[in-house]
């Protein structure tokens, strides 16, 4: 047990001796790690330190980024009518790939919300989920995002790829299975929202509805008094969304199951011909012995 005296109070030390006080700065990033410079720079734009919501931004795609292709920005999305009026509202954009970036940026540009990327899948060659359109879109919008006067206290717009567990192409030999899920610990709790005056959340989803993994998050928020609303993205009309409607989330499968994380992974593995996150194995000729 420590006493009240600060343990690192600098003693009388000879000149040049290392100080025991906490340092005020760190050495700069070594040059050898410049391969991560682009990803780091992009991450700083999408997760600025001035926003409290940046703590939840997922760095996975940024940490693996080595280059990005500029892509033309989409036509502006009209999200003005999507937010229910009045109170500060957190938004979750759960749409396919790059579209989630386009719509989230629209909320930032038109309604002053702070985008928070939550993409938690990895880049891989010949993967089931192609995350490059997402990183290309993140790159394409970053200059415009930097120029937006988003207030530090702005509510968040969380960004998810709704096809994270159901890619458009099925498993096939040689393809890398990089599906992923969202868990409650990936987002702030309902308390974290309500403590900051946010008592309402809007889900912008695709026609297929909310996945079970996101339902776990929403149900917990709902339990803590966050009012849920939803709008449906009308993909065939770039500029329109359905009018917002109140949502009630039913108890999701395996809610608060002690084995939810494990069960989730097992379910994903059993669903995949090649195992979650693997390359779908190509038939290998064994050398005999009955073990191949």
């Amino acid at each position, binding site marked *: 047990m*420590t006493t009240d005296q600060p343990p690192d109070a600098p003693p009388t030390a000879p000149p040049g001796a290392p100080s025991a006080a906490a340092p*005020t700065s760190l050495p700069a990033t070594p040059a050898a790690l410049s391969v991560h410079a682009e990803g780091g720079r992009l*991450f700083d734009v999408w997760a600025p330190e001035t926003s409290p919501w940046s703590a939840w931004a997922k*760095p996975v795609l940024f*940490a693996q980024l080595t280059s990005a292709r500029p892509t033309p920005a989409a036509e502006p999305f009209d999200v003005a009518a999507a937010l229910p009026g009045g109170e500060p509202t957190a938004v979750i954009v759960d749409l396919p790939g790059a579209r989630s970036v386009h719509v989230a940026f629209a909320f930032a540009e038109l309604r002053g919300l702070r985008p928070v990327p939550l993409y938690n899948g990895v880049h891989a060659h010949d993967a089931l989920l192609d995350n490059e359109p997402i990183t290309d879109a993140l790159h394409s919008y970053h200059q415009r995002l930097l120029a937006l006067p988003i207030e530090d206290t702005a509510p968040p717009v969380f960004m998810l790829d709704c096809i994270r567990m159901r890619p458009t192409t099925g498993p096939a030999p040689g393809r890398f299975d990089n599906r992923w899920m969202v868990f409650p*610990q990936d*987002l702030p709790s309902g308390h974290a929202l309500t403590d900051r005056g946010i008592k309402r959340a809007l889900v912008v989803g695709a026609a297929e509805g909310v996945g079970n993994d996101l339902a776990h998050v929403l149900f917990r928020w709902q339990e803590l008094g966050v009012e849920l609303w939803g709008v449906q993205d009308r993909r065939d009309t770039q500029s329109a969304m359905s009018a917002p409607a109140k949502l009630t989330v039913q108890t999701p499968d395996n809610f608060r199951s002690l084995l939810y994380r494990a069960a989730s992974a097992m379910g994903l593995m059993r669903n995949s011909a090649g195992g979650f*996150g693997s390359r779908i194995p190509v038939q290998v000729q064994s050398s005999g012995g009955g073990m191949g």
Partner: protein
Amino acid sequence: MADASTSPSALRLGQPLPPAALSTLRRRAIFECCKWDPQVEDVSTIAPMPLWLPRHEWAELSRLAAALHLETLAIERALLLDPGAAHAGELALPPALLRALAPASWLGRPGATPAADGPRVMRFDFHPTTEGWRVSEVNCDVPGGYVEASGVTALFAEAYGAKPTGDAAGALAGAVARSARASGGDVALVHATAYSDDRQVMEYLARRLRALDVVAHPCAPDALALVGSEAHLFGRRLGALVRFFPAEWLAELRSGPMVRALFRGLRTPATNPGAALLAQSKRLPLLWDALGVDVPTWRALLPETRDPRSIDASALAGDDWVLKPALGRVGADIALPGATPPKERAQITKEARRRPREWIAQRCFTTLPLSCEQGARYPCLGVFTLDGKAVGVYGRLSATPLVDHRAQDVAVLLPGQFQEQSPEQPQEEG
């Protein structure tokens, strides 16, 4: 003989980094060390200050952990040689795993050997208590914390001009590299790729291996193929594999000979082989006497452990016993008096009464808390051992005596000349 009488009360928390410096460190942890999970729900996972561990305490922990490593391997060997796996049945291991380990199930070859050992790594969780150091458990199947124990701790060491206790990831990478070169092949880093927090560990180890000119491939278990008795990946023979995929999940996969080989018969060096889970069951102390293995360090450091059925209900509901699942991870489903909410504790107690063979009751100890600006914090020092030698510490700080997923990671550092002073000692002259 183990000496558990040293006093860990000289541990202390350092001054926190200023916000700007902490922010820079956090960013470097993400991009240099693959710390991709710096936030878990509402908690920043990186504690803003280091934990100072006096050098003599680190020497003692190293000695104790090394002894525990050897005793744990002895227990594992005794279980593997156990005829008919009679004792293994008491450990609450999944039936599929017991089938994978039992000699009779191995394609009718009763003489098949356990999977080849690569470097063996374990992590022993030490707590500073009123009775000296105590150990709550060992993670000898897939111990975690490499990114934090090595990468993040190195950043804090740099910031404070201090030394870390070691470099667990670097030591592991070095040992696996030697193993792979001897076998002549690449390294597979086997993990559950659904989780980026597991993938980040594999990416970090891959970087450390690549720095040693060893090619490493993060992959899922069913990407591996068994050719003869050796593991292959992408049609090429592997030199070694590092498994970060829990053995009890592995046993449930419908993946045929390769997964079975990870338990028995694989010739490719594996860290750790599937049999490593045997010694991780918290019910193991119930078998020490029956196995006849000499475990003096375990007996000195682990609190009294009993089957829940041997304790009456009123005692179990009191303040002296903590209930734990036999194969729990990350502090999940633990009923600790004073820390677990009453409703949850009642639910766990009920479950333990219903299925006592899957639980243990352990005598409570009193962890010595450390003070910081945010209040009391309870430390847990996870000492990594590699082939019998202590190689680093994964530190955690919890706001309650129960160290679970809400605990923060803390860099454990060895103080230098001017950091080692305790408030009771006179200041050193210049």
